[in-house]
């Protein structure tokens, strides 16, 4: 675990770190053994309570999976409010400006046409295309930034800690084995918070891709610290 980053101190570091250990995309540095202990919950309340307990116990490197957004979870996990707003708004303004400048160039300078004797520079009549272009720019930026922030790319081989996490299960993972967090303690914490099953999240060595164990399948003892693979 020596190549994992040290315990994060600021919120930004926490986010970067959380993404690192849960998404495990760093193929260049395969990590042996468990990198996190994951507790599974049947309700969003269970997930929230466990996240609060983990945070109260001093764990900072946390990640959660849920089939739908759980309100109130972000502050507990230390996630800031998404910052997609301002860049999208600025892109909308850029769209207005682009369209305004473009129309002004076409209608006033490049090829001015006398149209019922009206002046060439009639910006009030350009407001509709400006509005449409600004909103179109904003929509494209909104989607692009959302995909970038969520790290979404066409990936046919995505694996979750458990396929039921898009169905009816909720999961909280505590970075364990790394950062000096004891997997046994992490498991005890998750169980006491009401997890009906606890599993480990490994980074696969052979493939370089993260290998998540299914919920029921017991983890081999070699892959994680003793006691961390008990299942409900």
């Amino acid at each position: 675990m020596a190549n994992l980053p040290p315990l994060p101190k600021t919120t930004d570091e926490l986010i970067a770190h959380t993404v690192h250990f849960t998404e495990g995309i760093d193929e260049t540095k395969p990590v042996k053994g468990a990198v996190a202990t994951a507790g599974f919950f049947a309700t969003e309340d269970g997930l929230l309570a466990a996240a609060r307990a983990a945070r109260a116990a001093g764990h900072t490197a946390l990640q959660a999976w849920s089939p739908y957004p759980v309100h109130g979870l972000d502050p507990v996990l230390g996630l800031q409010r998404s910052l997609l707003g301002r860049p999208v708004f600025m892109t909308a303004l850029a769209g207005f400006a682009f369209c305004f400048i473009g129309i002004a160039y076409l209608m006033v300078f490049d090829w001015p046409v006398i149209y019922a004797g009206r002046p060439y520079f009639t910006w009030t009549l350009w407001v509709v295309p400006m509005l449409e272009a600004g909103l179109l720019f904003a929509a494209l930026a909104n989607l692009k930034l959302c995909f970038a922030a969520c790290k979404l790319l066409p990936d046919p081989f995505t694996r979750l800690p458990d396929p039921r996490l898009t169905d009816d299960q909720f999961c909280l993972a505590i970075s364990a084995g790394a950062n000096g967090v004891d997997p046994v303690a992490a498991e005890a914490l998750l169980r006491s918070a009401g997890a009906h099953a606890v599993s480990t999240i490994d980074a696969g060595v052979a493939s370089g891709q993260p290998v998540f164990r299914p919920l029921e399948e017991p983890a081999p003892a070699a892959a994680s610290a003793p006691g961390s693979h008990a299942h409900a």
Partner: protein
Amino acid sequence: MSDVTPLPPLTAKQITDDLTAPIFRRPSLGWIAGMAAAGGLKMLLVFTIVMYVWAGYGIFNVNSTVGWGNDIASYVFWIGIAVAGTLVSSILFLFRQKWRTGVNRATEAMTVFAVNIAGLYPLIHTGRPWCDYWLLPYPWDHLQLWPQFKSPIVWDVFAISGYATTSVLFFYLGLLPDLATVRDRCPDTLIGRIQRQVYGALCLGWKGTASQWRHYERAYSQFAWIATPLVVGMHSTIATLLAVSLVPGWHSTVFPPYFVSGAIFGGLAMALVLLVPLRAGFKLHRYITDDHFDNLAKIMLGVGSIVLYVYVMEFFTAWYSQNKYEFWQFFVYRCTGAHAWSFWLMIFCNVVCLQLFWFKALRRNPISLLFVGIAVNVGMWFERFNIIVLSLEQDHLPVNWNYYAFSPFDYLLLAGSFGLFFIQFLGFIRVAPIVAIAEVKQTLLHQPHAPHGEATHG
């Protein structure tokens, strides 16, 4: 959801099972029959377009007086249907109407499919569809001209393309978590493994982590803010396109709100026509409940009343202004002229039939919902026909007066566009969840315990 109390409460697993089941089971006979019928109708569209490209615009019956016929009336009709989907997906979202989650996916799909059919009509209407890219401000070396940005027709090009793009993007963003749900439920067979990879690629590797949801929710709510002015602006632009002209019956400042409310009215009627059979066919009674229909019908009653108000006000202003051309258009030509039957059919469908929705039992009865839905669809198509064709038929100069009747190809084009619409909708309901799974779970299972608005409400 008070009407489902005898059944045990829905669990997340039940919701997933119910809503993904149509994707994995074999199609029913009803679906195959519907698809065959829609496919047959679509072939009429293909045939008409081939004939049109081969023989020219003369196969349609527009003439020098009535230059806008079926093309523009049907275009406005389909755009109106698209508007209602955005009402449900964006405007009701901004008004925090949680019940929208039961119907928003279906209406958004309706939007996307209706808007691409709507786009087809003006592209046909130009007469030379292979030159349609001239509508865009594209550097034309051979023409040395630009589109005239003072013209609402150019505004309309921007409005339609911007709206079509945004509604597709919004629709796709909303689909992501549900496509991931489908991905994770693909069976472990050969087909299932292929399906898993296809859905995995389509959902862009969605994981549903807390760090993804917070961006997703923000982007979703921002899309609602973006789509709402777009949709209102788009249909107002179409209305302005008519209102800036001097044709009697068009030259009216009431047109933008008239068109927007009419569009919502007609679009919700189409939503009823789609949702009532869909609920029965897929047994979605616990997701698309009578309460949903009740609410949709109430909104229809509201916007339908606005439309009725405008019908009355058109006559009132024609009389009050003492403009003899307007007076002639409304009091004489529309009520008693050659096309009076289409005016009275519109009044019957949009005004008389709608009054059934004052009764709660009829707002919750599938038969009456379907009846009013179909009636209002017919009525709204004829509303556009009345506005566009009847006004053009008798304008200021009697020497210009002319009559417009459908050619056989006009009928084929209109029928074919319905085929293309239903083929898309029927195809979609078999490949993606037709009710938004993640949103329905959030609405039905969420117990209030934390202050809302942190990430959702941007």
